[in-house]
Structures are given as C-alpha cells and as structure tokens.
C-alpha cells in the first residue's frame, strides 16, 4: 500500500510539470509581452526598466521557464505582480476559506445524494421515485451561479421579508425569525463580530456558509442521487440480496446492511472526481457570495493578468486534485477487500 501511494505521488510530478508547462506557454503565447500588461502609455521608461528588472522579464522565455520550474520545485511561487505580495502568503490566506466551503459542500453533496438515491431505489418506479428523478434532473441541470442568485433572492432578500411577515403575525417566534434569515454575502458579519461572544461568532460563520454551500453542492448532490439510485438498483438485482431476503431478513436490514455496502463503492470514485468540479463551482459561487477564497482569487488574477499567481493557483489546484484522487483510491482499497494495489 505504501509503495502504491508513493508511486502515485511520483506520477503526480510529470502531471504537475505538464500543467505548469501548458499554462506557462499559454501565457507566453498571448499577444503582447507579460510586462506590457502592467504599463500604461504614460509609464516613464525608468519605471518600466525597474519593473522589468524586478520581475526578470528581460530574460528570454526559456530562461524564465527554467527558473520558474526550479523555484516551483521548492514551493517558491514568487511575488504577485498585481498585489506586490508573496504568492505563498496570498494562497495561504485564501486556501483555508475554500477548503472550509468545500468541506461543507461535500457534507451537503454526499449525505443528501446518497439518502435521496437510496429512497428512490427502494421505491423504484413509484410516484415518489419519478418525482425525485425529475427534481434531481432539474437541480442537476441548473447553473450554480443562477441557483446562488435565486437563493439570495428568496432566502436572503425576499423570503426573509416573508418570514418576518410570519413573525409579525405571530406564526413564528422572534428567535426563530432571527435563525431563519441568512446572510447574503461575505464570510462573517464584518460589523457585528466585535460585539459577539465566541459562540455567536461560530454561529455567525456557520450561517454564512449555508447559502454558498447549497449553491455549490445542490447540482452535485442531484448527480450523486442519480448515480446512487442506479448503483443500488444494480446491486439489488444480485443473487446475494435474494438470499438475504429469502432468509427472512427485514427489508431495512437487507438494504442498509447488505446492499448499501456494495452500492456505496462507486460513490467513493465520485468523491475523487468531484474536486475539479468543486473548484469550477467555487469560481462562480465565491464571486457571488463575496467569499474570500481561491475561486475569487483566480478570477481576480485573470482580470489583472497576474502571471505568477495564475501559475501558482494551477499548481495548487492540480496538487489538490491528485491528492483527492489518491485519497479516493486508498479509501476504495480499505473498504473493498477485493481491490489490491501493489
């Protein structure tokens, strides 16, 4: 097993090299040199020379490429051209925020998807199955950014008025109203947090996570449900399930103990495949909810044509994808004794 993990990590090196090379040459191919993007026609020549010298832009592309590879090998990402800060610091600030959001999203995707898919398979071809199929297809076909806007509209802006209306009519108590209304953007209450206790701050942060988490996760949860349904339906057809039923076991035991174990296996692979999608989703959702994570960072880096930051972000995201797939592979081997890696 250790050997397998080691070999996989070793295989990640050429992959990372390929990604970095691809992005570097894409940047080089763009019309105009990298330096030109930072100059306005009014920039005095001395300043130009200083900037060019500072970032080493006067050297030929191949030399800069070699230097960049050498630096990246030691996880030295250089200095951001737009923010004038070390890229490492910028990523260190943003990455945890995205990881928290991704973790919450995963916690929405998998339990929801697995539960809905299982219920559908159990009630195969019944009305609730068809209804859930249509609903999951609807969410599966939904752009995450539009879902984010609709969540803002209905829950953060519009629906909150509706809930307050219920509170005013005495249907809900004031405490419940406060709990239901969710913030529409940001990571925490920037003004209120100074007067809050630690417990309140945690609750505040959790409340800020709910809407972006759902916006990012609902489509994937619907996809997982579709997958889980077909996976469980396939398992239920097998002979050992018939045996279990013939033994007179409760249907609940047959499904939850016997069938689920095998039906969940393909879902683990789904976990590994989910990570690039999470990054793409984060780009849109973080922009809408003003979430200071990697997604917004990427968008800003592209708007400002901040080459070192772009390359570093691709480096980090590829690394995370490789790690995610590795975790999925290893989990698979632990859960399914039939799988042997060596």
């Amino acid at each position, binding site marked *: 097993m250790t050997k397998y993990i080691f070999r996989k990590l070793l295989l990640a090196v*050429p*992959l990372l090299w*390929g*990604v970095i090379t*691809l*992005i570097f040459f*894409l*940047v080089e191919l*763009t*019309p105009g040199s990298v330096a030109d993007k930072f100059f306005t026609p009014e920039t005095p020549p001395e300043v130009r020379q200083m900037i060019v010298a500072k970032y080493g832009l006067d050297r030929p592309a191949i030399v800069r490429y070699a230097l960049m590879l050498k630096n990246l090998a030691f996880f030295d990402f250089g200095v951001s051209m737009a923010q004038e800060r070390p890229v490492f610091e910028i990523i260190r600030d943003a990455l945890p925020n995205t990881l928290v959001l991704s973790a919450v999203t995963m916690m929405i995707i998998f339990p929801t998807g697995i539960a809905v898919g299982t219920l559908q398979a159990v009630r195969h071809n019944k009305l609730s199955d068809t209804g859930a199929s249509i609903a999951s*297809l*609807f969410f*599966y*076909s*939904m*752009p*995450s*950014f*539009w879902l984010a*806007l*609709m969540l*803002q*509209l209905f829950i953060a*802006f*519009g629906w909150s008025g509706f809930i307050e209306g219920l509170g005013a009519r005495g249907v809900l108590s004031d405490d419940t109203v406060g709990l239901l209304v969710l913030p529409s953007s940001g990571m925490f209450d920037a003004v209120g947090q100074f007067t809050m206790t630690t417990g309140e701050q945690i609750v505040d942060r959790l409340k800020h996570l709910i809407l972006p988490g759902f916006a990012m996760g609902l489509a994937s949860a619907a996809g997982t449900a579709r997958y889980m349904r077909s996976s469980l339906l396939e398992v239920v057809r097998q002979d050992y399930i018939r045996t279990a039923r013939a033994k007179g076991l409760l249907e609940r035991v047959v499904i939850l103990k016997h069938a689920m174990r095998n039906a969940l296996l393909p879902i683990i692979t789904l976990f590994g495949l989910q990570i*690039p*999608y999470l*990054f*793409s989703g984060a*780009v*849109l959702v973080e*922009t*809408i909810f003003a979430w200071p994570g990697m997604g917004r960072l*990427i*968008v800003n880096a*592209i*708007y400002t*044509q901040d080459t070192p930051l*772009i390359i570093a*972000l*691709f480096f980090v*995201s*590829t690394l995370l*994808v*490789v790690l995610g797939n590795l975790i999925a592979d290893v989990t698979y081997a632990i859960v399914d004794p039939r799988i042997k890696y060596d």
Partner: protein
Amino acid sequence: MTAIVQTSRFDAPPITRAGLLLPGLGHLLVGEWIHGVGLLALDVLLFGSALAGFPRLGSVLFSGPSGSLAIHPVVAVVSWFGLAAALWFVAWRRANPRVLTDEEYNSNRQIFLRQMNRHRTGMIGLFGVSFLVSLTLLTPLIAPYDPIAIEVGPQLAAPSWQHPMGTDDYGRDVFSRLLYGGRISLTIGFVAVTITATIGTTLGALAGFAGGVVDRALMWLTDLLLALPQLVLLLTIVGLFRVQGAKGIFLIMFIIGATSWMGVARIVRSQVLSLRQQDFIQAARALGLSTQRILFRHLIPNAMAPVIVFCSLAIGSTMLLEAGLSFLGLGVPPPTSTWGVMVNDGRDPLRHAPWIATFPGLAIVLAVMSFNLLGDGLRDALDPKLR
C-alpha cells in the same frame, strides 16, 4: 420477400387522421399524450410566430442596415415553412404508417426508432430540444423588439403585456433579448460539441488503433486536462486572449471544444480497443484495406453510438460552461447577449427587478434539462444490452 403488415404495432385508427387538421391532435386522441402535447406546443409556436411575425413581415425582412434585406428573417421564414412541413408530415405518418418488410422491421435503424419512440422521458427531451431549436430559428418573427435597442420601454419595468418578461436597467426588452440570446447559447453548444466530438473521436481512435507510445502519450494528455478545473482553464485562456466582437464567439466555441474532448477520446479509445479484436476488422485487414480506410470506414462508425449519447449530454454541460464564462464577464463580448450574460446583467438589480436574472436562468435550466433527457433516451435506445 413478403411484405408483412405489423398490424399490432402499426395500428392507425381512423381517428388519427384528426392530426391532419392540427398536428398532435391525432396522437392525443389515441392516448399518446407526450407526442400529442409536444406537437401541440410546436403548433402553438408555429401559429404564434405567424400571428406575431407575418403582419409586419415587410419591416422584419428589410431590417438590415438602411433597409436592406437581412439574412436572419429570411432564414426564419424558410424555417417556418420547414417546421410546418415537418409537423404535418409527422401527423400524416401517424395516420398512414409505413408497411415494413420483415427485414426492415428488424433492422438496427427501425429497432432504434421504435425504442426511442417508446422512451417517455427521451421523447419529452426530444420535443424540448425541437421546441428550442424551432424557437431560435423563428426568433426574428417572434421577438417584439430589437434585442440591443435601448429604451424600447421604461427602465426596470415589471413583466406586462407589452414586455412579457419585463425590461432591464437600459430599458431593453428582456423577452426579445432572451430569444436572441438563446440563438447564441444554442449555437455555441452545438458548434463546441461538434468540435469536441471531432477532436475526441480522432484522438481516441488514434490512441486505440496505434497503441504503444502514441497511446500512452495521448492518455497522459487526457489525464492532465482532466485534472484541471475546466472552467478555470477556460477563464484563463479567454482572459489572456481577449478578443472583441464576433470573433470572440468563435474563439469561445473553439476553446470550449478544445478543452472538453477528453471524455469522448476515452470512450472512443475503449470502443476501438474492443472492436479491433473482432472478426470484421481482421477480415478488412486480410482484404488488404489501408489503415485509413479501416479506421474511418470500419472502426469509427461502429464506435459512434456512445459518442452520440455523450454529445447530447455534453451540449447541456457546454451551455452551462458558456453561461458560467459569460456570467463572469469573460464570455461572449457585448452587445451580444447570451443567457449567461443576461443573468449577470440581472445581478445588480436583483432585489428590485428579479425578472432580469430569473427568466434567462430558467431558460438555461429547461434547455439543459431537455438535452439531458434526450441523452438519457438515446442511451437507452442505442444500448443493445437493454433490448
């Protein structure tokens, strides 16, 4: 060869002739409600566009610069007659089914057509896609206003009879913009997926057929591109090569196509790997056919079924991708509108004018859903294992 009338399957009670009066009516009267409702919806589109467009046909046709003949309205008028012909053909076919010989009845084509026709959700998807495509083709006849003309109505007006989906903050008509935006969104979807399928099929077949170093190199490239978040890659490329105007649309189509071929390549490669072991390829080799001929005439056509399914599903995801790009302001350049651009336009006035963002988003959901339903249907109908 005896002609066999499959009376049970090709039953056409006289009442199906009601369809000749109004396509869809015949289907509905014999209880085929999906076909019936789908065709009736297309009828509504046909007559609606005639009512909306034909009274002002002159001004629509000569809407080009300084009153010249514009190309899109001409296409629209031609498509109007095409749609009418197609609708009445379907209705006529239902009333007068073809009599098939035994051989025809058991041909792959007829089996596929029967399976597809029986697939309920697949047919819903097919009618949804047909509706969308007809809608985009007939747009110049239907759209009440110029999509980029500002102040055709009051700013940020709520939906009303004059403006069925309201107006945006420049006083542009959201309904007209939605119709014209759909043309761009759908075109990008179709063209990008065609590029995807072409690149993916060629590379996948090459990898599967050549094997060895070529195979390993191509699969490494596939893994590499699959490890990258596609939207981020697209954003980077589009952000770096910013192109204005109509060229920008072509650039987007090409870049989306060039960064999403990996799935097709993998499918075609595995198909080719299993097909090349089979007898008919051995026979082709023994006959001394050239590699090219074996590849393009024998291997690829036999590997196409899963590619078609993949493409139908990919049009949906491509439209989502394009919408995401446009939403971030890096997609189709203004003043052209696509559904993604329109959702972005509606972001700032979301609280006061939610209709600007809501309707194009719903259009995206319905379009993507139709393509997904169609793809599922095609997969079930093309899959020999399920027969």
